[in-house]
């Protein structure tokens, strides 16, 4: 008995069938799950790489020497003031120059992207199930998310 992906969370299935992976719909859930896992692993690897570089070289890549006290390193400066990247462009140029802070920032950005990717794949999944009500709902959420990113880019 195969159940629609969109109905997996609804209705009254008679018996538990945790090994439903054979059905195509079970595949969709596993697909989403794997994308998430993959995205998380990649972002973790990049963050870890940046952190290792930082600890080993004692440099942030932005002129800060990290051998001293932590108080200096984490002292608050409004708007970062060139101490770490705050825009996509800065992250990219920093990564190209192997700056540890930029590599960490890249990993963090990838992490921030994972929920967005998840919403986007849900749109596709609902589309596949022809659940147009939820295609609309999910698209709305996706658009709000994209609006949030765009606003962040141009706003401040």
């Amino acid at each position, binding site marked *: 008995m195969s159940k629609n992906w969109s109905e997996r969370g609804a209705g009254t299935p008679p018996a538990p069938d945790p090994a439903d992976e054979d059905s195509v719909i079970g595949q969709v859930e596993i697909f989403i799950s794997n994308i998430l896992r993959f995205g998380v692993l990649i972002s973790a690897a990049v*963050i870890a790489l940046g*952190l290792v570089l930082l600890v080993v070289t004692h440099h942030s890549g932005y002129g800060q020497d990290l051998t001293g006290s932590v108080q200096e390193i984490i002292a608050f400066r409004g708007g970062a003031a060139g101490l770490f990247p705050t825009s996509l462009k800065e992250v990219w140029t920093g990564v190209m120059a192997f700056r540890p802070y930029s590599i960490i920032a890249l990993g963090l950005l990838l992490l921030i992207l994972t929920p967005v990717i998840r919403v986007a794949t849900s749109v596709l999944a609902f589309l596949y199930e022809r659940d147009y009500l939820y295609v609309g709902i999910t698209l709305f*959420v996706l658009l709000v998310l994209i609006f949030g990113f765009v606003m962040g880019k141009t706003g401040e």
Partner: protein
Amino acid sequence: MSVPFFLTVTFFSSVVAGIVGALLGLGGGIIVVPVLTLLLGVNIHYAIGASIVSVIATSSGAAAAYVRDRITNIRIGMLLEMATTTGAISGAFLAGLISPRWLYIIFALMLGYSALAMFQKRHQELPTGVVTDPFTAKFRLDGSYYDLALQKQVDYKTTGVALAFPMMYVAGVLSGLLGIGSGLFKVLGMDIIMRLPMKVSTATSNFMIGVTAAASAGLYFMRGDIHPFIAAPVALGILLGAHLGTRVMAHIKSTTLRLIFLPVLLISALQMLLKGIGW
């Protein structure tokens, strides 16, 4: 304080935060922010930036397992996220225009009240006598999951979406304004108003908080509130913790979840109250 000390303490407290966060559908910021600000002397702006990261890390770190285990009700999550993400954008806009003090006090009271409600339900394993209202029927929110601790399939009904929706909007505003995931309010809304089984509430909240936080994370990044030196060990610790938390979650009973939830609720209420009166 040396660099290795800071990184180690941050990492390990984030692991704990990730475990608790994944279990309860919260963002882990509840543990991370106090540790960073009170223990390690981090400025509140950077702590909030790290909190936003920790919310997303908890969500995505645990999500893979919960989706696969089919406990998350994606429909409920998406529907409510319409309200939360809109709220988050509003909140990010409003930051600077509204004094957070009053919000802290109001929500401290709400949390206190919820702690009471949660305490009254502490022996309830699964909800009973729930009747689907026409609104929730239209959106097909009823569901089912297999509870490993109870060793049986649990069918459940949903109700009260009309009331939960505005609550989620407010939770979203809080999120954008204060840099939190608002997981607490999501779980409470689903548990008390929509009367979902506890595990469904926490797993669905876990899914939702990541989406909500992502809505305003870009803004925090651009503002320079996400400091790589601080956010990196937090992110890594939380990811590990959340992963461990999902494994625990499968075998834990809903009543146990409630028991863990209660002290967290009370501590949060206290934290908010203190912030509200300006401590």
